[in-house]
């Protein structure tokens, strides 16, 4: 990168003026004339045979145009896809609307199409569906027991897939260990709760034979490809537009039944159709995250050196696979080494079918689980060995000069300095001061806890070889004849601010004004190709593609400038958007003038193509591995079970930073979600497969008053994987924060004999733990 003005600057977002005026267009804000509205009848049962569905009454309803059931469309629409390379994967056919059985609460049974949304909703109540309930398997561990009810008769063991990895001499590690510490850890199911629920608008133009689908999605290009397969439409007659998208967090990194259904209905009915998900539907039928039950064993020397780690996971899959479902638990496996040197690692994952909605990628997607396992275990080991949790971490960190660092799980961490981030966080939080405060307060029977999390995550997804559907990204930079710059990116943002950060990259490279740049995304007819925004990849991969295109544009402009100035390209200097001959700064030509010359094409170098634009597709050579240290200080009230966060410090290293304001926003929002998992959130299914946390009244998303102020700082270790040196930051907060909070609470309750508490750390759990136990008299802190 050249010396820059904008990259690294705290620039306010260019997306915001429309959004703070209420002038953005999310799917439901787009109104096409003559649009019909779709409502979906969903299963109230977790497992039942459909004896009959009678739709006559619904069809009689004024304003109802059509009622569709699963059997009406089973030949017309292909199954909902899953992308996976796991050879053991069992893929149940995942219909858009179910036909003979329902297998989870919320599964689509029928769809009503009506003139307005109220009528569509009314008519749902007139559909008569008779069910014969079947035995339910809700708990993933019970699903594995012999004699358990079976979800897919072809696989009576309810196993969806297996995945394992074993590296190093585990037997030796455990034999030589001074101690083996075991722990069972539950990563509860979470609902992503993007504030905008999903929504789809579809329009078919029969003359042009063109289907346009607006969807609240993170992956318009992948969706286009998959929809063309599901609907058997030529892909070049299909256009997917992700308009303003109201949050995703992985939940919109998918291909959903409703997207195909709406495409089909638009073609069949010849009118635009719209479906907007309600929040209850969202909690029932949009993917969930996490859902792993793990048993971990760590072999350790007396001095805290880790010798080996064995992890067995039961992963709660749900009834069907969604797009990336089987890929998430292996990501946990790959990241299990955390930011430590662990010579021997063994992982066994069993994915289990349950009568529940599918789990899939939710912010962090497999990495929060890995970080939680390792960071909880570091504290458990510290506790068992009587070592300070800081010291045991430092003991097992690889040194900065050991990077690129190869883990036993086979990953190569690009760059890192874990010690520096930890040091900075300790200083920022005032670690020693809190430790003495903890000691002092325990004398007063007040319980302070300090929790650390030193994390590393895998981002910048990623090399295509390691991704199920491509890991590259595209970027186009086009100078218009008037000198304005249009940037196209396949990384389709939904709140991350790429319209700003990508413009910063281009503005610096081309020396043009930020306001002269427009970044376009999310429309497959405009952006030639793309993968999408997820896995903290947009800037590392998509930003790099844009940067490379800007470089190409500049190089072409240099050749044109040299031609026009009758100079050698090598003799030109480029500064502030202007090429001039070395030593003759007055004689020069601006990049805008060159853009015009390139378009009118009357005086260009021989054989040069007219126009001034370039497209790049960046294929990264590796993932990136951001890291950091989060420290949380809590006070726990054993009488009420209440937890007060007294201080929260996060030191994150995401490599080079394009826009610190946006990075802060990503970290803060990420921490809020990780904290939500630690303290409040859980999708609760009962033994009948009913969701007990099925609305926002019961599913506890953190509110403003629940959260503290976070103190943020950074270290900066650039990645060698891309020329920008950026690593990605979208998930860091979520990955780093959860164990910091749990470690703090367990630390606070050590006098009560606490070694581990499963999330969410509800007051009731804490209160019960403290009941009947007299706290050990404080003394030595830990």
């Amino acid at each position, binding site marked *: 990168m050249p010396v820059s003005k904008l990259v690294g600057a705290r620039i306010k*977002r260019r997306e915001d003026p429309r959004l703070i005026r209420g002038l953005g267009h999310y799917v*439901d*804000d787009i109104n096409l004339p003559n649009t019909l509205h779709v409502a979906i009848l969903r299963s109230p049962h977790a497992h039942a045979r459909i004896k009959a569905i009678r739709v006559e009454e619904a069809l009689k309803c004024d304003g109802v145009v059509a009622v569709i059931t699963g059997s009406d469309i089973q030949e017309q629409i292909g199954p909902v896809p899953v992308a996976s390379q796991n050879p053991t994967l069992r893929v149940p056919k995942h219909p858009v609307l179910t036909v003979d059985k329902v297998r989870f609460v919320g599964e689509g049974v029928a769809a009503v199409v009506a003139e307005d949304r109220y009528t569509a909703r009314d008519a749902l109540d007139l559909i008569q569906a008779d069910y014969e309930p079947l035995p339910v398997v809700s708990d993933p561990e019970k699903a594995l027991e012999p004699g358990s009810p079976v979800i897919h008769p072809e696989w009576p063991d309810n196993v969806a897939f297996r995945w394992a990895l074993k590296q190093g001499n585990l037997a030796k590690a455990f034999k030589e260990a001074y101690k083996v510490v075991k722990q069972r850890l539950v990563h509860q199911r979470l609902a992503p709760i993007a*504030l905008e629920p999903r929504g789809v608008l579809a329009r078919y133009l029969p003359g042009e034979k063109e289907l346009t689908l607006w969807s609240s999605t993170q992956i318009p290009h992948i969706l286009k490809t998959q929809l063309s397969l599901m609907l058997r439409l030529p892909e070049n007659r299909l256009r997917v537009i992700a308009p303003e998208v109201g949050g995703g967090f992985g939940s919109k990194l998918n291909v959903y039944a409703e997207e195909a259904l709406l495409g089909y209905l638009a073609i069949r009915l010849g009118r635009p159709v719209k479906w907007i998900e309600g929040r209850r539907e969202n909690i029932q039928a949009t993917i969930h995250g996490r859902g792993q039950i793990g048993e971990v064993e760590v072999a350790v020397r007396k001095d805290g050196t880790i010798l080996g780690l064995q992890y067995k996971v039961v992963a709660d899959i749900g009834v069907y696979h969604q797009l990336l479902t089987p890929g998430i638990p292996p990501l946990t496996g790959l990241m299990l080494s955390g930011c430590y040197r662990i010579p021997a690692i063994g992982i066994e994952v069993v994915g289990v079918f349950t009568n529940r909605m599918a789990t899939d990628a939710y912010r962090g997607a497999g990495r929060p689980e890995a970080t939680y396992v390792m960071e909880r275990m570091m504290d458990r080991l510290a506790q068992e060995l009587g070592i300070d949790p800081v010291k045991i971490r430092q003991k097992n960190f690889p040194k900065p000069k050991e990077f690129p660092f190869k883990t036993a799980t086979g990953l190569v961490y690009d760059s890192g300095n874990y010690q520096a981030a930890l040091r900075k966080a300790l200083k920022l939080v005032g670690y020693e001061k809190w430790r003495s405060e903890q000691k002092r307060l325990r004398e007063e029977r007040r319980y302070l806890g300090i929790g650390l999390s030193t994390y590393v995550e895998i981002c910048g997804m990623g090399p295509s070889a390691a991704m199920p559907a491509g890991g590259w990204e595209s970027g186009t930079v086009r100078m218009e004849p008037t000198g304005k710059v249009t940037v196209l990116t396949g990384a389709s943002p939904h*709140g991350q601010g790429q319209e700003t950060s990508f413009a910063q990259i281009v503005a610096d490279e081309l020396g043009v004004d930020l306001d002269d740049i427009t970044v376009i995304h999310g429309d497959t007819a405009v952006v030639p190709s793309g993968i999408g925004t997820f896995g903290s990849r947009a800037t590392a991969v998509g930003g790099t593609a844009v940067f490379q295109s800007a470089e190409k544009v500049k190089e072409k402009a240099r050749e044109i400038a040299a031609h026009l100035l009758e100079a050698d390209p090598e003799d030109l200097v480029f500064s502030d958007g202007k090429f001039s001959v070395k030593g003759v700064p007055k004689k020069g030509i601006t990049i805008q003038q060159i853009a015009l010359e390139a378009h009118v094409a009357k005086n260009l170098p021989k054989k040069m193509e007219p126009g001034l634009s370039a497209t790049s597709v960046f294929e990264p050579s590796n993932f990136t591995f951001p890291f950091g240290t989060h420290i949380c200080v809590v006070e726990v009230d054993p009488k009420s079970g209440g937890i007060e966060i007294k201080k929260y410090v996060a030191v994150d290293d995401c490599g080079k930073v394009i826009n610190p304001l946006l990075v802060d926003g990503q970290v803060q*929002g990420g921490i809020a979600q990780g904290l939500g998992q630690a303290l409040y959130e859980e999708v609760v299914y009962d033994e009948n497969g009913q969701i007990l946390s099925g609305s926002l*009244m019961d599913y506890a998303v953190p509110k*403003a*008053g629940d959260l503290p102020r976070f103190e943020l700082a950074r270290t900066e270790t650039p990645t060698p994987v891309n020329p920008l040196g950026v690593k990605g930051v979208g998930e860091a907060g979520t990955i780093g924060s959860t164990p910091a909070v749990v470690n703090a609470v367990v630390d606070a309750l050590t006098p009560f004999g606490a070694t581990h508490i499963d999330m969410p750390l509800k007051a009731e759990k804490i209160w019960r733990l403290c009941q009947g136990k007299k706290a050990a008299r404080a003394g030595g802190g830990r």
Partner: protein
Amino acid sequence: MGPKKRVSIRINGVNYLHEVEPRLLLIHYLRDVVGLTGSHIGCETSVCGACTVMLDGAAVKSCTVLAVQADGAEVLTIEGLAQGEDLHPLQEGFWECHGLQCGYCTPGMILSAYQLLLRRPDPTEEEIRRAVDGNLCRCTGYQHIVDAVQYAARKMKK
């Protein structure tokens, strides 16, 4: 469904007259009938606050108000907050302080904060957090939202 009712509502300084179903929610009236789509819907249980508008000077969740209940009332939505090109200090604050990411909760969040600043021009951080407790944001972790409201309070005092 019953006969339609006539409602006369003044929204952002403009009078609207419509015949609506008595059960029509104010949020659907604003979005689908009047065409003001700045207020959003994020739940159906009055928890998320994305639909918050000012109704006769009080912030309400327009997903739990019927359009007929707003008959004769004055409504302020996000679209009515700026004076032409001049942003309201709250809008400015959200922009300056990066108080939004996906932007979906923002209109409702701004209107809840608007009510707060009407009542308490100089709120503490705790008061701000309490005032927007009925507005969920999944993106920001609220910190920049607090900053944005503080920014607006400072600006409005000047």
